[in-house]
């Protein structure tokens, strides 16, 4: 299955692609945000209940006011969390940040106030009849994986790579200490960058294939099971080795 991407044109006319977040990433972000706002609302309620029972307040008319204030603050936290946070964080709520995603416009830009208001207002339809069923169905059916609110607001959720510049930095640093060809270096670099995210069953064959291609001697089948050893051999290629061709 090919990765869904959003093609955007930069200011200089060079095109680039941003990976679109699918229903899984969106759900993960939503659930994280939902837990945060639920926790926030519960904290207000708990504070109000505790304050109500505090000496000097308990049994007095002010106790009722404290409880009412707690309920109002809890409701405000619960219902306004997403619109307010989306506006304040410019489309990158804590949930989206955790899921390594963010809201962008169809041009890949940071969305403005209007787009964020519209996207949140349409939650009323997207959450129908319950548990965001309409939003989820729309998200699965549309090519950009968007819910109705996103269609109306012209927004998309894309996956972000917060470590992209760090990755470029490490790639350049590695290019100084290795004599691998740039393309080979880039392959080894990419595999090492994704090492922890890959499953062991997937990374071992990749590492074996790459080592067989790059090293003069084929990878030793006896040591193939040890992925740590495979990683060490890949890293060794990046440290001042004699120039190896492809």
């Amino acid at each position: 299955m090919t990765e869904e991407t959003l093609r955007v044109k930069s200011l200089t006319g060079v095109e680039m692609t941003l990976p679109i977040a699918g229903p899984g990433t969106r759900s993960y972000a939503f659930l994280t945000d939902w837990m945060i706002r639920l926790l926030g609302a519960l904290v207000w309620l708990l504070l109000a209940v505790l304050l109500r029972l505090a000496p000097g307040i308990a049994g007095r008319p002010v106790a009722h006011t404290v409880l009412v204030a707690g309920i109002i603050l809890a409701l405000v936290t619960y219902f306004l969390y997403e619109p307010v946070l989306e506006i304040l964080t410019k489309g990158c709520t804590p949930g989206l940040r955790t899921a390594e995603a963010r809201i962008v416009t169809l041009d890949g830009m940071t969305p403005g106030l209007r787009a964020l208001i519209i996207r949140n207002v349409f939650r009323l339809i997207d959450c129908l009849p319950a548990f965001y069923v309409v939003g989820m169905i729309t998200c699965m059916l549309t090519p950009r994986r968007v819910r109705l609110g996103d269609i109306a607001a012209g927004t998309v959720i894309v996956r972000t790579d917060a470590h992209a510049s760090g990755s470029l930095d490490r790639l350049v640093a590695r290019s100084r200490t290795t004599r691998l060809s740039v393309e080979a270096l880039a392959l080894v670099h990419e595999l090492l960058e994704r090492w922890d995210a890959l499953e062991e069953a997937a990374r071992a064959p990749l590492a074996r294939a790459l080592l067989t291609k790059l090293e003069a001697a084929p990878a030793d089948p006896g040591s193939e099971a040890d992925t740590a050893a495979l990683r060490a051999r890949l890293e060794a290629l990046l440290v001042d080795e004699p120039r190896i061709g492809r």
Partner: protein
Amino acid sequence: MSTSRESDAEIWVRAHADEWQALAADAAAAAHRNQASVDEALQTLRTYRSLLRHLATVRELMPGGVLVNVLERTCGQLHTAVNRPPRLTRASWRRLFCTDIPAAAASVRVLTLSLAALLVASALAGWWLISAFPRLISLIATPQMIAGVEHGHLWTYQMLSLAPPAMLSAGIVENNVVVVLGAFCFGILFGLGAFYIIAFNGLNIGGLLAFTHRHGLGLELLKFTLAHGFVELSVICLAAAAGTALGESVIRPQLASRAESLRRRSAELAPLLLACALLLLGSGLIEGFISPRPAISIPVRLAIGLGYWTFMLLWLSGRLCSAQRMPAAR
């Protein structure tokens, strides 16, 4: 030929290693920055342009390679950071309140008046329905409301004994905001959702007025609604009109596609929703703090209701403020 191309790429990439490292550091700093000085912003722009230039070159030298991917991801990270809408300054808030909101209201003026007429028509229908078939009131009112009115008590004045004004206001505002946002959102169903909400509210209002009138409490109900009703009902009509306009943009797209047309219309009408929410906050406070108090006389209620309504009309017609002061002539 291929070998020569590869060696060109090797030479080129290794020659730019230092520059790339500096660009990567700049990109990392820019992506995590919330505020930037002019120098920092200009530096970020230079970094962005340089990275894009290098991306274009690497694409040419090593098409489809991992290096393209790494550079593209870095550019993507910077693209969103660089392309941010301007911060909302006092001038932009002023423009929003003094120009954008009145413009959005003006764009749906005819629809608003049409929906107001629909509200009145359905209220009349509701009045007739309950007058002709009194038993149907059970479809509109709860058994407690019906029993109260039959015993000569209007439910509205018991509201303060059930909840304090602040809680009451919060509940009312929440309910009204949901109705207004619903009228807006459901308008996307070719306007039918907005029509339904307006007609349903009109039937309820007319029916309740007829029912209370039968038991001699019609004036009391009118008295209750005088202070907040003008703005509340106007805002519902306004939001429904905005929703209908959204539906119209889907039925009769003015742009290349329906989605694009909907996006454009939504962006134009978004400020109106903000105005509706703020106006409802005001009317919710009036409904929670003023309307349920029997001691407040009809003239005072009327003055508050009409005063607030006049404020709304002046604001939405753009007569309350102007977006910018004209510069002094030299």
